[in-house]
């Protein structure tokens, strides 16, 4: 399969070839790749690409996948509107 046509991160449109290019340049961890290519920074927050990127790092550098660290898990697990947060906060203040 042509690595230029394999999409790894749908949010930020990153291909397998993009990943390999970054590995070659010396970016070897999920956090490093994330900062340059934006993998895991989109609306899915790495819920889609996270495992694939870690697997590719493990494969490329011949490391056990459990040693490939993931980024820090932070809120949110899915997007929430600011207006909904505001309304909930105001409801709580009133009650």
């Amino acid at each position, binding site marked *: 399969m042509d690595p230029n046509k394999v999409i790894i991160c749908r949010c930020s449109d990153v291909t397998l070839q993009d990943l390999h290019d970054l590995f070659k340049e010396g970016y070897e961890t999920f956090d490093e790749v994330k900062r340059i290519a934006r993998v895991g920074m989109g*609306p899915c927050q790495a819920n889609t690409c996270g495992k694939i990127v870690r697997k590719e790092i493990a494969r490329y550098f011949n490391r056990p996948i459990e040693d490939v660290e993931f980024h820090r898990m932070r*809120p949110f697990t899915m997007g929430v*509107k*600011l207006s909904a947060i505001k309304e909930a906060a105001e409801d709580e203040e009133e009650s």
Partner: protein
Amino acid sequence: MKKKAKYVIIGGGISGTSIAYHLADAGENDIVLLESGYLASGATGRCGAGVRQQWGTESNCRMAKMSIDFFEKAEEILEYDGDVEFKQEGYLIVNSNDEEAALSEKNVRLQRSLGIPAEMLTAEEAKEKIPHLNTDIVHSATFCGTDGHLNPFLMTDAFYKAAKKRGVTFYTYTHVEDIVTENGAIKAVKTDKGTIECEYVINAAGGHAQKIGEMVDVDIPVFSQNREILVTEPIEKIQGPMVISFSKNIYCQQTPHGSFIMGRGDDRDAGYSVHSTWKFLDEMAKTAAGLLPPIGELRVIRQWGGLYNMSPDRQPIISGCDVNGFYMACGFSGHGFMMGPVTGKLMSEMLLGLEPSMPLEELALERFEGQDLEAYETNVV
């Protein structure tokens, strides 16, 4: 790991990488940079990505202007193969009342006297810049069109690559454990990967700068504080300038990528935690939806925290001290990213004994020895 180097820089954020680049570009070729995580993993990569010149002290204005001048040509100067996403669409600083407007007028006069093209705007003029601004709660504003946005990760990457090309050695995921001195002078830096003998240590450790100071018994009068921030899903472009308000406690801008980044500060204890809180989220949502109503319809996808390294007068400390060979660039009080270029330039001039590009008295560690500080920066969110 190398056993010896002339300079050891501690911290791989914008300050450390810029210092490394400027020293190497001036011809120094024996430089090591140590970073405990990945590059820009501290405050640089957690910041709001804004770069502005609208400050209330002369030193901050000068530093910010010199840095913006650099950012305008950064890709060319550093021969960067990427795009640092520099966008100059201005900062709109909103005033809420007469008192704030009077201070803004004073600040704009200072900024203009230093060549910064800032101006006062009425609420109506502000609305022309930001059509979705809720002018019911806006008194007036100031605007500077050459302020803007810059990608912190990629700007750091650009300094890193340029420094590496000039011979600087980088060790990431390397923890500094101690600094050895002898007869009041720097001797070596101990890390978890080995010890490096050196003549100079440059402390660019951001939120952890005071801990590095303690290693050589230098009491740096700074403390760190968690400041939170959030990002929304990306949408089509609706906002050019960054909007900030000191009294409403908000900064909010749309990045070139389309997402909105916003943050605010609150009173909390000094510390090193960078955790996320519900309180921030509630207050941020109320403030953003109040000042910029349509933004309320955007979905938040992530929130995070980072450390402000606060100095007593909210101006940085770029200085040597009484330990021979120990230098520091810290205490940026939330604005180290935007002052990165000039930090590197001033530090390299200081180390090489060159004529400084701007007066350094207001940035020296000694300024805190007396009780009365000459200048105090109020323009901090």
